[in-house]
């Protein structure tokens, strides 16, 4: 609730009072209702269902390799493209200016990594345990690779601009979701049948952890610089 109020206050101060009031009322209602629900027969099942879903969240040891793989792809692409941009930056920005530009770039890269990571976690929560959670590192890594390939296809084909109407946009989104689903199902089958597939993917993800130790601190420092430049 505090985070919600903080964000609202930063965006639109008069709004924070309304958000604060509504959030407080909502929390109060939830507090009262939760106790009522838990103690009722239906509420008990609902509560157990929630706990079951939450138990699908992977352990820290499983989350780190997948997040590291995401960081590797995101930062590698961004740094690669930055090599093309820096010559023009050198012409028109001072060294300090380039430092700030790079800070913005790395801050956004960290946010982008968290965004994709959240998407992977969402897929994990939605899909059955047998399809995803039980081989989280391998399946998560494969999902990251699939999303990267999709992103590169979109980028080089400039595909989204070619979608002529909302129907085509919806179809594209559906194809994307279906492709991820098919990949999850097929890979789950393959991993259960051929352990080597799973171990190779886990080994790749495991070797990416070093990038987390580099990119996360860089991203956090960059984010701090961006926040300081905008809030102070």
């Amino acid at each position, binding site marked *: 609730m505090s985070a919600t*109020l903080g964000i609202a206050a930063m965006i639109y101060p008069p709004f924070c009072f309304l958000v604060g009031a509504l959030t407080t009322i909502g929390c*109060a209602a939830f507090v009262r209702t939760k106790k009522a629900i838990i103690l009722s027969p239906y509420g008990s099942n609902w509560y157990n269902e929630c706990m079951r879903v939450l138990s699908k969240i992977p352990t820290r040891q499983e989350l780190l390799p997948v997040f590291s793989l995401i960081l590797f792809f995101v930062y590698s692409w961004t740094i690669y493209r930055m090599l093309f941009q820096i010559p023009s930056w050198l012409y028109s920005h001072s060294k300090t200016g380039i430092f700030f530009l790079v800070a913005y770039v790395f801050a956004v*890269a960290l946010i*982008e990594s968290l965004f994709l990571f959240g998407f992977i976690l969402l897929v994990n929560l939605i899909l059955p345990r047998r399809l995803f959670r039980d081989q989280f590192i391998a399946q998560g890594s494969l999902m990251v690779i699939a999303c990267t390939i999709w992103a590169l296809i979109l*980028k080089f084909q400039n595909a989204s601009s070619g979608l002529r109407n909302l129907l085509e946009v919806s179809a594209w989104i559906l194809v994307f979701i279906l492709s991820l689903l098919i990949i999850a199902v097929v890979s789950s089958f393959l991993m259960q049948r051929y352990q080597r597939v799973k171990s190779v993917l886990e080994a790749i993800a495991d070797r990416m952890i070093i990038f987390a130790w580099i990119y996360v601190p860089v991203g956090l420092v960059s984010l701090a610089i961006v926040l300081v430049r905008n809030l102070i």
Partner: protein
Amino acid sequence: MKSSINRRDFLKLASGLMLTPMVSTLPKLDIGQSYPALNTSMTIGSELTSPNVIIILFDALSALNMTTYGYPRNTSPNLARFAERGLVYHNHHSAGNFTTPSTASFLTGVYPWTHRAFTYGNRINEQLVPENLFSLLKSVYYQVAYTQNLFADTLLRQFSDSLDRYIPLSSFSLTGGTFYDKLTQKDSYYAMGSLDDFLFDQEEISGSLFLSALNDLISTITLRIAESKYGDQYPLGFPKQPKTKLAFTIDQVIDGVIQSMAHWASPFLAYLHFIPPHAPYRPHRDYQNMFDDGWEPVEKPVHPLSRGTLQASLNRNRREYDQYIANLDVEVGRLFNHLEESGLMEKSYVIFTSDHGELFERGMQGHSTRMVFEPILRVPLFISVPGQRLRQDIYTPTNTVDLLPTLLHIAGLPVPEWCEGTVLPGIGDVSASRPTYTLEAKSNSTFEPLTKASIALIQDQYKLIRYLGYSGAPHGYEFYDLQNDPEELINLYRTHPAAKELQATLDQKIKQVNQPFIKAS
């Protein structure tokens, strides 16, 4: 089961309520209103102490494609009508061959080698920021600025402290927005350079892997929704603000500006910089069959610095450009009608111009070029003076850098010595023959002397072009007699007696402007 709140629940509620006033003391990120609000001390409708100044600027509008300047196609009858009541400058040249240097010269009154905004999205030298149009005129006018051009917006934000009302770039647009505009107001220069110009670049391969794809998808969705409402009016697609996904219709932008005018205190200075007819050329459907007349311009030899575009393609693009001009001419006509009907025309200096032109010859289309020929440098300049009814034509060569001293003269303020322009003839006295310059230096560092640039010197009827550091340029110099050879077909560098004189002037000038950047050995 208890139905009432117990002590623990009450304490949770109370702590939440207490947080609310504490949160309001946190630093706020003001999105949407970080510039000073309307200055209520200059009340609307108060007695006018001096005329308003309305600067209407259309991006990439070449004088040579306009009716007033003798273009064979009747592209701009409304602008011709406006010109009939004012000063018409026939030899007005931009100080740069694209938006950033030219607009910076307009707003600072100095040439690009002084303000150093050489390339796309550059800002001017920080030391010159206090010396700009808005800061110099702050004491006289209520100042309003609006642009649809991302690069011009960078400059306006640099001068924002002097503005009374800044209208954001995405105003009056149908779709989308820019990241630097939506997310951050305080650090917009670096936000624009990193987010809009790199990570989420709409025209090059962007630096973001996933979020840019999502951004593109969202932009496409919003655009398709807009098209479902207005798409039939624009079969070629909506006009678009370059380097963004901002789509707009010209009529809605003009309507938005007209509505905004009602809230400006008098006397005001309004800088209004519209994107049309900048590419992409997407006129309304009513204009798409215009100029199917078979007319073709004089074909000129392909220049070594061009992209080698075929003449047939150039002619086709030129026709679309002319259609776009015809479209915007009608909308500008509506704006002028509003100014006349509201009485603002009689109470204002109305200045119509452009930041640079557009090229459709010598194998090159557009203005992203190293070339500095007339179609890209000659821009319209009409000035309607309060009380003036008859047209006055002025043929003295003038330059973008002359607009700042002219505006200072109109406001009754002295022209600073550092200003490199002079008061325009017709407003001030006719000045003696003097050289005016245009500089293209996209590939030259802002912090280094000029070693890679195209420079045009225009004096009287003569034009000297120097290509500095470009290996493809023939001989390094070109010289034209614009009066006898307006199409710039005959290079007289080796034969004309005035060429050497102008060369000496230009070389001396280059040496002078490079001096501060030459490191002591």
